[in-house]
């Protein structure tokens, strides 16, 4: 096929306009953040999503340091940090992943701090017929329960806690074929919220979040049923903002931050 000269010209004009627009984007300030403001990037376990957002907002207000948050399963985030993800701080949902990072040289040992103890809850939609207060964990055996969502025990600490609790009550074998795994504990909760799983073993912090108010009912799994969900924070070794990162970790230790964490159902370690 032969192209006419005018069609080639108009195509070239189109391409040059497109290129011009692409080159202009940064100049227009449409992408990228301001360089002059301080900024730290935080990787955090999924159970912290609502609580840490509130803590970070308070911190930003009082210090002006921007806190960029990324949430995921602790195992996933550990993996990302080992592979060079540009995080300054890592809030895990357990102590093992931070220790693993320290041992491998990816995180600074002196910065490790146990900031909270998480709680596991049974959670079902508000209109669920399940009566947690009467039957407790045995609600999982109710015939109306077709699917039970938990975090993936391979890389989500809450998933491991859920499996431990199921085994503690001798329910694990009975419900194995009804378990569905969320990529992290927040997705496990989302499976319940969307009505696809009838009940889930999720984080107390998640069901106490403002967005979840009135959407479901919960029952706290007794703490002796699973190893304590002690959660650790650590500064990443290759962080380029170690001072700012350390300052944020110090802020987590203040009464102000502790108040927020407690409101989301986290127990605080004795100081």
């Amino acid at each position, binding site marked *: 096929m032969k192209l006419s000269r005018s069609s080639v010209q108009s195509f070239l004009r189109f391409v040059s306009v497109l290129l011009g627009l692409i080159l202009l984007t940064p100049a227009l300030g449409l992408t990228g953040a301001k360089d002059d403001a301080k900024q730290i990037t935080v990787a955090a376990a999924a159970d912290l999503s609502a609580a840490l957002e509130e803590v970070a907002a308070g911190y930003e207000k009082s210090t002006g340091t921007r806190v960029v948050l990324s949430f995921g399963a602790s195992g996933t985030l550990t993996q990302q940090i080992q592979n060079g993800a540009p995080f300054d701080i890592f809030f895990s949902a357990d102590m093992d992943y931070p220790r693993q990072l320290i041992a491998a040289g990816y995180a600074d040992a002196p910065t490790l701090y146990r900031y909270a103890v998480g709680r596991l809850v049974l959670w079902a939609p508000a209109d669920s017929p399940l009566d947690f207060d009467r039957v407790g964990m045995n609600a999982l055996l109710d015939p109306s329960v077709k699917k039970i969502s938990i975090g993936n025990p391979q890389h989500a600490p809450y998933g491991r806690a859920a499996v431990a609790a199921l085994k503690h009550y001798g329910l694990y074998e009975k419900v194995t074929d009804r378990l569905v*795994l969320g990529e992290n504990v927040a997705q496990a909760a989302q499976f319940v919220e969307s*009505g696809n799983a009838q009940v889930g073993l999720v984080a107390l912090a998640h069901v106490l979040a403002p967005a979840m108010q009135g959407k479901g009912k919960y029952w706290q799994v007794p703490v002796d049923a699973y190893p304590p969900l002690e959660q650790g924070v650590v500064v990443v070794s290759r962080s380029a903002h170690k001072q700012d990162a350390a300052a944020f970790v110090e802020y987590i230790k203040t009464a102000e931050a502790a108040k927020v964490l407690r409101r989301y159902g986290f127990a605080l370690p004795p100081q």
Partner: protein
Amino acid sequence: MPIDLQAVDWQAFGLTLQLAMLVSAILFLLGLPLAYWIAFSRRRWRFLIEAVVALPIVLPPTVLGFYVLVALGSRSPLGRWWQSLTGHTLAFTFSGLVIGSVLYSLPFAVQPFAASFSAVDRKLLAASATLGASPLRSFFRVVVPLSAPGLITGVALTFAHTMGEFGVVLMVGGNIPGVTRTVSIDIYDQVQASNYAAANQTALLLLVLCFAVLAVVYGLNRQAWTIGPAK
């Protein structure tokens, strides 16, 4: 690197192959009439249907997966209807994955189908009609044989696209071994658990398998291309 067959999750492989073949078959049957309509309809709003068919290409798989999850859940009329019929929701089942995958791969079947239908010389259809053939007979005796390369391409793309699907499965699957844990989810889990060797083995096998399937299909396609019109 030699492939260590012990490290590969064969259940996940079988499941993924089954899913990809089923989705290809469904989209072949579903895609033929849809593509025919797109190629031959004179409706003014045809472009709207074309745009809807193309949507899964631009929608992130997580968005599509989220929509499917909500649509299948007990909060939606569709989910409730299915639940009253079968007693369980469609999410976290193999059927749920099939539905998600059919939507996700729809354009990969319909677009090549429609493009090859449109390329068929209308004069041949007119000739077929004057010889007394019904539109259906003309479709199977004239349009389909002349469009064979496009049909094969569409089915091959659907198959390959479903083999490598991740986001939709992650959103609606629930990672159940033997039911919804596909190869891509298995690889993801292996990487998260630092089992790089196992992840590598599985990924390599997936790569080899998909390459073989595509090579065979495109090899056949070449033949269809050269002998087809001469028939």
